[in-house]
């Protein structure tokens, strides 16, 4: 038979999306961000991203005992997202361990893609931050040199610790920071692609960024609100991590609750915690609450009658 006949009961809706096509879309969306990282931090950024992706894909291939290295592409996305959360040039073994942890403990231990409770890339990052804080969040932020592919770079305090960058620099990304978090511009371009393809919903990033802005505003005025959105990992987290389909709620109300929760935890950690950045733990915490949120916000079935106590 040349053509496949699909015989099934209604509804006869078929989406052209499959896991691989979604993952390729995410990789495409991350491309401007990755390009910006290499533009700012040079070959170091490239090496970090390659190590993270290759180790992530290798770990997945070994655990699944599959010959197909790229697989469904989700390991590559996880690896790249992990690299985006890291400083430009951590030691190679830190990156590699992060990738192994992200895939093995963050994802496969739960039964693979679709069953993981927490965003795998953030699990990898969280383990690295707690284990080797000095390499991940210490005095490791390089001052970017645009076009300086092999330029020597010096370290500088990150904008979230020093609160000294201008909003314009934060928007373009010419500030020290993690690979994928510095350039708001590149992140927004990537996110527009994902919106266009319908893979992400405005509610999660909207709730997340909105709350960060409001709390920033309360803590120090309008410019502080913008500062908190642009500095650090809020945009990266809100657009690419919190929106992960597997680990965020499916209901519309649930998505808003989820986004708002991420924003609140992030800002509480930033303003009162002992770490400068709180996006990772904000999203991870809300990941844990996702099943509960879904449960509470399930829409009423059509025709369902509220149970009476009579």
């Amino acid at each position, binding site marked *: 038979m040349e053509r496949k006949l699909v015989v099934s009961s209604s509804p006869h809706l078929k989406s052209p999306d499959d896991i691989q096509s979604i993952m390729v879309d995410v990789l495409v969306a991350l491309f401007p961000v990755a390009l910006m990282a290499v533009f700012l931090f040079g070959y170091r950024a490239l090496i970090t991203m390659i190590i993270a992706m290759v180790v992530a894909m290798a770990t997945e291939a070994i655990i699944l005992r599959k010959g197909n290295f790229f697989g469904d592409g989700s390991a590559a996305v996880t690896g790249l997202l992990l690299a985006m959360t890291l400083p430009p040039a951590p030691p190679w073994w830190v990156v590699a*361990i992060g990738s192994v942890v992200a895939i093995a*403990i963050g994802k496969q*231990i739960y039964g693979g893609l679709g069953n993981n409770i927490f965003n795998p890339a953030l699990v990898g990052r969280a*383990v690295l931050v*707690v*284990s*080797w*804080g000095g*390499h991940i969040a210490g005095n490791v932020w390089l001052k970017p040199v645009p076009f300086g592919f092999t330029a020597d770079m010096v370290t500088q305090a990150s904008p979230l610790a020093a609160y000294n960058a201008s909003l314009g620099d934060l928007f373009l990304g010419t500030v020290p920071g993690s690979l994928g978090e510095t350039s708001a511009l590149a992140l927004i371009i990537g996110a527009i692609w994902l919106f266009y393809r319908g893979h992400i919903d405005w509610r999660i990033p909207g709730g997340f960024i909105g709350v960060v802005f409001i709390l920033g505003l309360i803590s120090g005025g309008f410019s502080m609100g913008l500062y908190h959105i642009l500095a650090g990992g809020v945009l990266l987290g809100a657009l690419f991590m919190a929106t992960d389909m597997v680990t965020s709620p499916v209901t519309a109300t649930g998505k808003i609750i989820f986004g708002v929760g991420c924003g609140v935890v992030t800002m509480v950690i930033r303003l009162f915690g002992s770490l400068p950045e709180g996006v990772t733990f904000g999203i991870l915490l809300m990941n844990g609450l996702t099943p509960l949120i879904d449960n509470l916000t399930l829409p009423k079935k059509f025709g369902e009658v509220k149970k009476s106590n009579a």
Partner: protein
Amino acid sequence: MSTLAQEFSKGIFKENPIFRLLLGMCPTLAVSITAINGFGMGVAALFVLLGSNLVIAALRNFIPSKVRIPAYILIIATFVTIVDMVLNAFTPDLHKALGIFIPLIVVNCIILGRAEAFARKNSVARSVIDALGMGVGFTLSLTILGIIRELFGKGSIFGVGVMGSAFEPMGILATAPGAFITLGIMLGFVNFMFKRLGIE
């Protein structure tokens, strides 16, 4: 009726308090940071378990069943306090490392659990063997967890550095999340091995 040898070995394998019964999780997670802490906690619990099982089995016909729980708690608390004072006097470093978890042996499920489930129905000899098996199983499990966490979290085993100076310890294993992760992986591994070996 099972033989004494079976009575002893069940505490180590089939009914291992940590990996099979999941009892006594609180000290397990809290003190398995280093091998020596895990071992010390295990031995302290072993001693308390031995004493309480022995006394409770001996008095099993004497204690009215309606007040047995307060009686058990009195007996267990006495042994725990003795352990606490002796450790404080003779091994101050271990006492400091175990801290609040020594007094908390009183509420360790394994101890009251064995008193209630075993010692009050069995002879003194069997109860002592049961306590030994359970205690050794607890000690072994805690020591294994301690070795893993100390090796990767601090780069040493029983306080002896083994990883060389270039090794940068994986700090998370020395913290509470590391305890959960290590225990979870060990549980999976032990259950997998038991299935393989056909032990149920």
